[in-house]
């Protein structure tokens, strides 16, 4: 290659699920543990091909989703960037260890390709029914980062983002896709090395005797050494003190809980990702995420052709809910339309932020079908 000339970017015609793998590998993922389930299985299958060929990649098919998350957390504690992917029923099984990962502050990425539920539901149909489960599915009070993607390129990008946030904040990150995004093939561009950022967890530099694994830091995120690197410490799902030892002393319990919320909440602006499309002068604003955001974009364009000032707020972060972005569009839009393939899981967040200011119209569909642009257009024209 001629010196000075930039390397050409690689392009692929890939599924959303395949793009997740591309993103994960760019982000430095070196461990995948999972259990097959439609419509997420392609992620696992491509990982099975790719990881053994990587320098330090490990791929494991586990006996179920509980075990998958256990192995992923184990690998994360051992220093790997680790992930798993699943869908509805498997996501329910993963909740136990999602909470454990929160408690021991193990970075990991969990991709949930949403399908129709509850229970076995509609295995091959799209849905967005796991949004609140992603936020609150595991027991106990906890903070949670939940991201989404609406097209194939975003699957790649948001997977990198998910890994970066997981490492930066020492927390599990859930990436919610839906069957449509996961199973659509599109052209994706693999970014060049200088075009994306990769964040690696902070490791301790002090001598092991001084190290306290769950100690307060400026960012609220304690440094994390890999197991076996000379820092011997205790990790437990029990509420623990800065040394990692179980405690039930109220002040120590409060300190831990407060820090675990604060380490994410104080970075709300950095964590809240969204895109505004024609929002600046919008009278009616659609708030959407996932594949529905694509229908919404089409509907907004059509509404504009008909003279209605419509806009789209596309959420890429679902939790912590991007409050500021929503408030901004509410400043001028007199109505918000929230289309979702569920009975209103994000519209309740919108209503909470809105607090009676604008008209909020939820548009819901739970029959295993995508919400079409014409349905959204109709709602825009009505409000």
């Amino acid at each position, binding site marked *: 290659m001629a010196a000075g000339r930039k390397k050409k970017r690689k392009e692929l015609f890939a599924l959303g699920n395949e793009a997740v793998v591309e993103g994960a590998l760019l982000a430095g993922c070196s461990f995948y543990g999972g259990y097959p389930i439609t419509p997420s299985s392609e992620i696992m299958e491509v990982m099975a091909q790719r990881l053994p060929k990587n320098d330090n990649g490990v791929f494991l098919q586990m006996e179920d989703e509980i075990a998958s998350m256990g192995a992923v957390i184990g690998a994360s504690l051992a220093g790997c960037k680790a992930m798993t992917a699943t869908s509805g029923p498997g996501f329910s099984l993963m909740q136990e260890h999602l909470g454990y990962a929160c408690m021991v502050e193990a970075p990991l990425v969990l991709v949930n390709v949403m399908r129709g539920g509850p229970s076995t539901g509609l295995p091959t149909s799209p849905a967005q029914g796991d949004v609140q489960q992603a936020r609150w599915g595991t027991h106990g009070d906890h903070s949670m980062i939940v991201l989404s993607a609406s097209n194939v390129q975003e699957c790649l990008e948001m997977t990198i983002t998910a890994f970066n946030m997981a490492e930066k904040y020492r927390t599990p990150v859930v990436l919610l896709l839906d069957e449509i995004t996961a199973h659509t093939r599109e*052209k994706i561009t693999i970014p060049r090395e200088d075009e994306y950022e990769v964040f690696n967890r902070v490791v301790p530099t002090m001598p092991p005797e001084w190290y306290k694994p769950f100690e307060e830091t400026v960012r609220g995120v304690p440094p994390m050494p890999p197991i076996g690197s000379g820092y011997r410490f205790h990790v437990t799902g029990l509420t623990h003190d800065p040394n990692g030892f179980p405690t039930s002393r109220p002040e120590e319990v409060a300190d831990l809980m407060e820090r675990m919320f604060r380490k994410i909440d104080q970075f709300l602006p950095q964590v809240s990702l969204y895109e505004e499309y024609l929002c600046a002068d919008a009278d009616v604003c659609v708030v959407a995420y996932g594949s529905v955001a694509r229908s919404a974009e089409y509907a907004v364009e059509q509404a504009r052709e008909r003279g209605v000032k419509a806009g789209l707020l596309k959420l890429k972060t679902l939790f912590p809910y991007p409050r500021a972005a929503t408030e901004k569009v509410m400043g001028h839009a007199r109505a918000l339309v929230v289309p979702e393939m569920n009975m209103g899981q994000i519209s309740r967040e919108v209503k909470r932020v809105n607090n009676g200011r604008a008209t909020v119209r939820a548009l819901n569909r739970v029959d295993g079908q995508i919400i079409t642009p014409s349905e959204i257009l109709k709602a825009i024209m009505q409000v």
Partner: protein
Amino acid sequence: MKQGVNLERFEIRLSGLGGQGIITLGRVLGAGLALGHGYQVTQTQSYGPEARGGSSRCDLVVSSGKISYPKAQSLDLLVALSQEACNAYYSFLKPGGILVLETDLVRQPPTNLYLGLPFTEMAASKVGIVQAMNTIVLGAISYLLPFVEQRIMRSSLQSALPAKIRDVNTKAFNLGHREAKREFGEQPEIWKGKPEEREGSDI
């Protein structure tokens, strides 16, 4: 990798029976259009129960600009390789959209405005293997679509295939292209004007 023709939103549905290689056809066509020609393409396909019942469907949306809604809604081109698929999807064809049939398998076309070739029979008698049928269809579509360059699509096809079956598929592709040229008539005439300006737009 230049786009030859400016496209707004062009929707294609490939449909037929499981085992006809419809999904592979869609993937190769999609990859050729996206990577070879530089268009934006979204490709979706039938999954699960829909895909198990013996039928198969693969949709592509092609555009010069960004594609918002990824699914096909009103078709510019419907390729039906079975009677069942033809019956099921004919109504999605937009006025002026083109219907391409496998003439041995679709014995009762819903209209007489269609283009057709006996793709399966051609594969058996002229290529020697029935499985090459989808590649013949690819060749024919490549002729039919004014924004597809035969050369680019052919090399796209070749790069998607293992060496062992590359030659036979190239042959099938060329055959499809040639026969379509002979049977379907001169290309610009087929897509003349906007659909609504064409005669018979009430179909």
